[in-house]
């Protein structure tokens, strides 16, 4: 039997990799993927908890996370397209419209 902690450490590792990707990549699409990575890391830990606690509510949460991730991806990618049409780049360090 695999201990719960192993799953959790795996989840933490994947999450950290996602964070690293999000913080370092210039390409906004890859950043988006890093985001998905982080969500998946959370999902792993949730499913693992659910299994070890014998409680299905973790799965329900995962289900919702996937739903939201789908919605988020569609909107996010639409924004990326719109952004690319306007700025002709996907590099976030070339976008600073929000500069105060």
């Amino acid at each position: 039997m695999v201990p719960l902690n192993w799953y959790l450490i795996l989840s933490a590792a994947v999450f950290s990799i996602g964070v690293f990707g999000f913080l370092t990549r210039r390409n906004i699409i890859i950043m988006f993927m890093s985001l998905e990575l982080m969500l998946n890391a959370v999902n792993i830990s949730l499913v693992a908890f659910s299994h070890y606690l014998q409680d299905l509510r973790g799965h329900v949460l995962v289900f919702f996370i996937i739903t939201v991730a789908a919605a988020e991806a569609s909107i996010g990618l639409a924004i990326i397209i719109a952004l690319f049409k306007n700025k002709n780049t996907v590099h976030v360090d070339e976008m600073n419209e929000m500069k105060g």
Partner: protein
Amino acid sequence: MQYYLLIPFLPFAAFIINILFGRKIIKDNAHWVSTLAVAGSWIVSVMTLMDVLSGLSVNQNLYTWMLSGNFKVSVGFLIDQLTAVMLIVVTTCSTLIHIYSIGYMHGDKGYYRFFSYLSLFTFCMLMLVMANNFLQLYFGWEGVGLCSYFLIGYYFDKKSASDAGKKAFIVNRFGDFGFGIGIFMIFITFGTTYYDEVFSQAAGHALTRVNFLGFDVHLMTLIALLLFCGSIGKSAQMPLHVWLPDAMEGPTPVSALIHAATMVTAGVFLVARCNPIFSLSETALIVVAMTGAITSLFAATIGLVQNDLKRIIAYSTVSQLGYMFLACGVGAYTAGVFHLYTHAFFKALLFLCAGSVMHAMGGELNIQKMGSLKKFMPITYWTMLLASLSIAGVPGLAGFFSKDEILWLAYSGASPVGKIVWAMGTLVAFLTAFYSFRLIFLTFHGRFRGTHEQEHHLHESPKTMTVPLMILCVGAVASGWVGIPHLVGGGAHFTEFMKPVLGHAEGHGTHAEEWMVMAISVAVGFSGIGLAYFMYVLRPELPGIVTQRFLAVHKVLFNKYYIDELYSFLIIRPTIWVAKNVLIGVTDARVIEAIVNGVPSAIGGFSRQLRKMQTGLLHNYATITAMGIFIIAAVMLLRNW
């Protein structure tokens, strides 16, 4: 017995009708409405006088005007001897002047407006004299001030006229300031503002002292002097006399009615009405007497050198009003009111004559440019001459009796300043005679000094103007006969009549002294006339020489002692300067606004610094967010350990 209500409300109805319908419907018939209404008031006033003579008096409330806690004031009417006399004076003068105005104002574009104002004035003046409480008195007081404002500024497109109206109102407000506080003190002391209740309680406070603004003062002196502030303003006494000469900017009938016969005497009326209060304070009486005497002398000296026809009469009015206060101040209220009553006739007459002269001269007012008008306008000349003789105190005429009574009671009365004010009053009598006849001689005698055009145009005034002159002339001559003193065989009916209201001032002197006082006043009157005759008829070059000799004195007198300039320098300009440079420029702009606008701009400046953190780069935000998460997580962990 409610018909007396018609006295004030007839003119009021006329005012309402004229002001609402005058411009479009009534137009040039406005005088019918007003004149008939005032004449109606006069008839009712005469009936009222008859009732009062038969011993009747009225003190009745119409309705509650103000009610707040224990403060209750009604619109109410008090009719006693004093009121009855004032009613006669007001309605008589008003009626005659209404009639006179029909001719004088003929063809003026604001005809209806003029008559509306006159009616409104009459209403307010009647409310003033008929009031049975201080607040309604104040109502009439301010109301006549309002009408005075309107009528002085009647030719409002002239700057000088509108300035004069404004000045009159504001100067009066200075007096009303004290008057108002006087009413507060009366209410706080007596818990009421009704005359009967106040006067009946006044004696009980004869020795009361109160703390006023930190000073320990005698209550009755305080109240009396505060009320007297109002009188000073309304009756143009020193130091608030400055508005009256300027008020001559108004049409002449207005000067006659408001600024000679009625409104300006309201101050005297107030002092007379409040005699139970004034009598309780010797200090207040001395102040009243001295104010009157000084003003009287002061105005008479200015009158000596003026060249403006109406202003001379205006200064004469100020001087005569001083006389009335002098009388009240020595406790001779009856004499003061008697002089008020006779003065109304001869001074109104003087003004109306001046109006008649102006009418003929095409608006010219400088007496140096007149002369020999006698032959062109005989009625005006003779009536004006009689009025001048009356004011100069020629025996037998109205002015003689009232003036003599004042001087005698000043001389013989109990007042500590009686002798001083008597001496001043006698001097004033001389000056009065002199400048009155200077006016007569320069205007009606000698040769004509105006333009040919004016000379060609000279004519006697129409009937509507001369008839009132003649009626008033009868008053100027005969009105004094109701008060002929016992000394010369008269009944002194006026004094007897007024006794219940005003009391009786006893003269403490022998008949010989009384004869002496009378002789002196007659002598100074005649010598004044004589001097004027000498200087302006016999030796016309003399005035110029005297002027040259006393150039500085002449200049000071001619410029009215520079009082206007002094006020402008001391009060008006500093106030405006403070408003402009301190309040707007510093307090509002540099202090309050600096804080109000400074706080937001300080926040704004801080924000501008803070804004630099916003790079707009997604990575920076993400990094900071991640660091935040890390720190929070770390804190949570460390706490668990």
